[in-house]
């Protein structure tokens, strides 16, 4: 539930016009969640996250009431907010993005995260991990198919980051093939991911997509 919750927050932020994506970073655990395009590898995001954490801390030493920090580059803006002692959320925005809209979304997310432990929220709990797949294995095709729809929607949303504007079409065709081959349940999602990987064609990009969708499974 935690992973989905965090992913939901980041997707909400990404829906703001001009937001490329965001990353939830923990100073000890590293990247907890991200929906940034695959070119931002985990290694890069860890490096960026560490530096932003230090930068925000340096700012707070001088401005006790510091809330956000932004870095404006020629073609993009990086916006950073500290969520708790160890966690920051940073978003990469179009240079002309309306910062007020983004900070308002951040305020809402921060309010909803208040009192939650970012790391434990991120990690799927043992109970949830044990409980959630089991019913799907035993349910008939109707409920299982209904259960898989939100995951398919998320997977579809993520594909344009890898395949660009044709992604939706390719995704729908792959889902049709997957269903024809007996897919349609959560258990059979790896087969869909394999079909999509074949469509992507590039192993590095396919791996990036698998990394993005794995937390959904």
């Amino acid at each position, binding site marked *: 539930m935690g992973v989905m919750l965090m992913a939901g927050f980041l997707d909400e932020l990404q829906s703001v016009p001009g937001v490329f994506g965001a990353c939830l970073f923990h100073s000890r655990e590293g990247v907890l969640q991200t929906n940034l395009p695959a070119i*931002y590898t985990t290694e*890069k995001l860890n*490096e*960026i996250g560490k*530096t*932003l954490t*230090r*930068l925000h801390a*340096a*700012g707070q*030493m*001088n*401005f006790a*009431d*510091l*809330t*956000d*920090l*932004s*870095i*404006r*580059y*020629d*073609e*993009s803006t*990086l916006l950073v907010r500290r969520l708790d002692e160890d966690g920051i959320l940073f978003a*990469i925005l179009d240079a002309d993005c309306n910062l007020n809209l983004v*900070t308002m979304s951040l305020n809402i997310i921060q309010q909803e995260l208040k009192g939650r432990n970012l790391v434990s929220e991120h990690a799927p709990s043992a109970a949830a991990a044990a409980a959630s797949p089991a019913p799907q294995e035993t349910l008939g095709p109707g409920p299982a198919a209904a259960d898989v729809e939100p995951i398919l929607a998320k997977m579809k949303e993520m594909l344009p980051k890898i395949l660009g504007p044709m992604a939706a079409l390719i995704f729908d065709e792959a889902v049709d093939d997957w269903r024809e081959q007996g897919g349609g349940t959560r258990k059979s999602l790896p087969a869909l991911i394999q079909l999509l990987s074949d469509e992507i064609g590039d192993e590095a990009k396919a791996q990036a997509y698998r990394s993005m969708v794995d937390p959904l499974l």
Partner: protein
Amino acid sequence: MASAKDFVNRIKTLEGVAGCLLVRDDGTMLARTHRFPDEYATLFILANQYAENIQAAAGSSYLKFLSFYRAGGNHYHVFKFQNFYLGVAQARECDQVKLLGQLDQILGAIKDGD
């Protein structure tokens, strides 16, 4: 370029500027319109260094400025140009987009040697 004092006084006349200071990239405070703490000079250098490190990691093009957003609304913006840092304290109620655009234009002209 005009003297450091003239320069900060000119920047101070922009609508929305509550105060400003000019620091050389070795940390020397050259001019300020208010009693800004000396520690700001260190922050400017450090923050720009961090921002340039991120620029390299993210593959971004050149750094324009940094902004520190404060709960009180008196945000702080830091620009680097030539061998200097310009720190600008924004007035609480002001058109931030307009102010940052003006500052970018002025500093861009200096960078271009106008």
